[in-house]
């Protein structure tokens, strides 16, 4: 048992903290207050962060990346999110697909895409699964209804695949240069056995971005429809076997959940840290009855709860980061993600309760955190995502 960090981990953490404090925090509220959801994105911060390594952190060293371990990744996510979780997510979203490329792509594909990804500070990626009528069914496919789930269709024509359909709520939609797409290549069976994955560059003929979604939280972070009208994707961009679905390679180091569980939990931790910092700063200066708010028992009890939950979450997050590095397979990453949803809701709401003022005044920063927190509900804590892990625990229990 050892909760201390290696020098390299600590270095990543410090570097991320500096970047977050000096570069992200000053633009956080400005970007999120922009009303047009197409304009909240800022290439400058992406480029600056990219040059520091925060875009390509997770690419293995042998492919020219930094090869940071999962503990470092968790630390960096928490630090970036302490300043702005939507900007933090815009960076870490790329790590997810770096992991995917290095674990399941062919060497040819790695060469073609990782090289570009490493060279270009504006190369960001995303993955499309959700469709207008298929959300929960993708996450927890119903055994009795094989046709439920996504519909994006791919049909082979010579050396190419023709894609038709649409995806929605896709991260980095509108700014991404490369997308991974799950498509049905056998429409007569369930998604578990009739799906093939493709890599689709943004400039693929027949592929375009549709509506840019206007979210109430995570406003910096782009989210759009992807539309495929006879989009032509070379077979060389097929990932894995036809109908090979979303199986991972044998060198999957993420405990089977492709790192998304750790990612949400670690970002939530950064948000909670931010809420604690803000609230503490506020109650140490705001006065009631001639004393600072810290003298009120009800304030102390709320602070206790904020810090207690945040430290519980930190413990859980660091443990699952280590589990990823140690290739421990458990349901803990999923449970930690579920836990992070409850925690971020409670902690940000307590923040709002402590940081309001007379005449309807509400700290803009606290308001933002509460809106960001709601995003977690469907990404990491809805009932589907809770039942998923419960079912796995039931299945694993002897």
């Amino acid at each position, binding site marked *: 048992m050892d909760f201390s960090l290696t020098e390299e981990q600590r270095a990543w953490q410090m570097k991320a903290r500096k970047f977050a404090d000096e570069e992200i925090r000053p633009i956080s*509220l400005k970007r999120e*207050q922009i*009303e047009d*959801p197409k304009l909240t994105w800022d290439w400058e911060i992406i480029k600056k962060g990219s040059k520091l390594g925060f875009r390509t952190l997770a690419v293995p060293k042998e492919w020219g990346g930094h090869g940071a371990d999962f503990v470092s990744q968790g630390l960096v996510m928490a630090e970036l999110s302490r300043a702005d979780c939507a900007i933090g997510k815009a960076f870490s979203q790329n790590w997810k697909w770096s992991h995917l490329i290095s674990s399941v792509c062919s060497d040819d594909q790695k060469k073609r895409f990782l090289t570009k990804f490493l060279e270009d500070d504006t190369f960001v990626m995303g993955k499309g699964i*959700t469709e207008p*009528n298929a*959300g*929960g*069914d993708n996450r*927890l496919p*119903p055994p*009795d*209804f094989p046709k*439920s789930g996504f519909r994006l269709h791919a049909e082979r024509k010579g050396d190419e695949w023709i894609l038709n359909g649409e995806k*929605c*709520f896709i991260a980095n939609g509108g700014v991404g240069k490369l997308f991974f797409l799950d498509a049905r290549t056998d429409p007569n069976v369930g998604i578990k056995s009739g799906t093939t994955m493709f890599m689709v560059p943004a400039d693929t003929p027949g592929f375009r971005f549709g509506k840019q*979604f*206007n*979210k*109430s*939280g995570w406003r910096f972070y782009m989210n759009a429809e992807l539309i495929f009208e006879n989009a032509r994707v070379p077979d060389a961009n097929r990932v894995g076997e036809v109908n090979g679905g979303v199986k991972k390679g044998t060198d999957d180091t993420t405990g089977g959940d492709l790192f998304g569980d750790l990612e949400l939990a670690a970002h939530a931790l950064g948000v909670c840290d931010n809420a604690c910092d803000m609230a503490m700063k506020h109650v140490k200066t705001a006065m*009631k*009855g*001639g*004393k600072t*708010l810290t*003298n*009120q*028992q*009800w304030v102390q009890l*709320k602070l206790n709860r904020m810090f207690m939950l945040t430290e519980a979450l930190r413990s859980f997050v660091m443990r699952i980061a280590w589990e990823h590095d140690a290739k421990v397979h458990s349901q803990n990453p999923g449970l930690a993600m579920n836990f992070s949803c409850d925690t971020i*809701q409670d902690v940000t*709401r307590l923040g*709002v*309760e402590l940081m*309001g*003022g*007379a*005449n*309807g*005044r*509400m*700290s*803009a*920063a606290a*308001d933002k955190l*509460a*809106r960001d927190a*709601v*995003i977690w*509900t*469907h*990404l990491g804590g*809805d*009932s*589907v995502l809770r*039942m998923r892990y419960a079912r796995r625990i039931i299945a694993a229990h002897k």
Partner: protein
Amino acid sequence: MFSFQLSAEQQEFRDAVKDFVTREVKPVANHPDRLQAEDPHFVPAILEQASQMGLRTFALSEALGGAGADTLTACVVAEELAVGDIGFAATLARTSELGHILFDQAMSEAQRKQFLSKYLEDDNYHLAYAGSDIEADDGGWNYHRKDKSDVEIPVTATKAGGDLVLNGTYAFVANAPLAKLIAVQVTTDAKASGLKSAAIVLVPAGTAGMSVKEPAKVETDANGEQFYRWFHGTGGAITFKDCKVPAANVLDGRTQLYGAAAASGRGSPLVQALNVGLGRAAYESAIDYARIRVQGGHPIIEHQAVGTILAEIAIRLETSRNLVWKAAWAADHTDEHAAESGMPLQSMAKAYVSHAVHEAALLAAECFGAMGVMKDMPQPHYVHNSLVFVHSDTSNSTAKLRVAEAIAGFTRD
């Protein structure tokens, strides 16, 4: 006789409002463009329609030309209106409640003569109150201590012949941008503390020297920190600069507009009735969606997990409404309630309902998946508006401390 049955008149009133809200209010309120714009102003034409139905003046006594609605009826109507749009409902509820207090209770015959006909005739005639009768959120600092939070009155009034000259600024007054008549709490002696030298003056919109300014979307405090104004409906700062008002506009004998009952948490739970309506809007939207959204081969309403969420919301709304209605009934029947338990039901309603409806709004949003956080959908607005209720009026923590003082029999007066 104990009864949960509304009178036939109350039911008719409610049904008429519900019908109006469904036909006229919801389609406008939930239009994606309006939702995304987050414009606090509600379409004036529909406010006018509501006025023509009597909803702007319904708490005014029948003798003076209103519908004479009591607190309970006002709460029933406010809930229905809020199902349509919370800002719209809040605006009407405020004008209606102030109409009753000002015209039925506070004004002299002469003042009524001057203002009543305009209030009755003009469908765009709204009312506002700039003042701080209800104790400002005291942050609990004086729990179980005799110390009182002093009311700070930021506007001074000095005599000049038959006039009063007003100077100062109220930082935020609900309804201010729409109000054609504003009751302003002033101090006639800037050095006196509390209510000792307080008075209330009626100031018609357009009076020279009074200006209303709506808040910027983002404001900055003295430490350079950004803040927003959280409110429902419209509101703004009111500044008086050598603003002359006839001394005849002073409300006789009044230092505050709401009574001691409100200050001790035994006043009207109208605000929480609005909140129940907000919760209902979220609830009804979730039911509608759960019936049509298919997952696992079935509408999600047929999944235990979603059914449980809907039941959780329904139970929160049922318990919230019962508490609000009891508080309203108690406000209408102060003697009977005092004999019963004397607990500060308004404070209880504040603490319970605002928490319960916030949870309900979050649960409802969860049913929508990613759509529940998109600004062109009503769900994130329900969540935000419910959080505004948690923050508004007084904090939940302070409300609970007031309840605790009542339990202990502690009084500050």
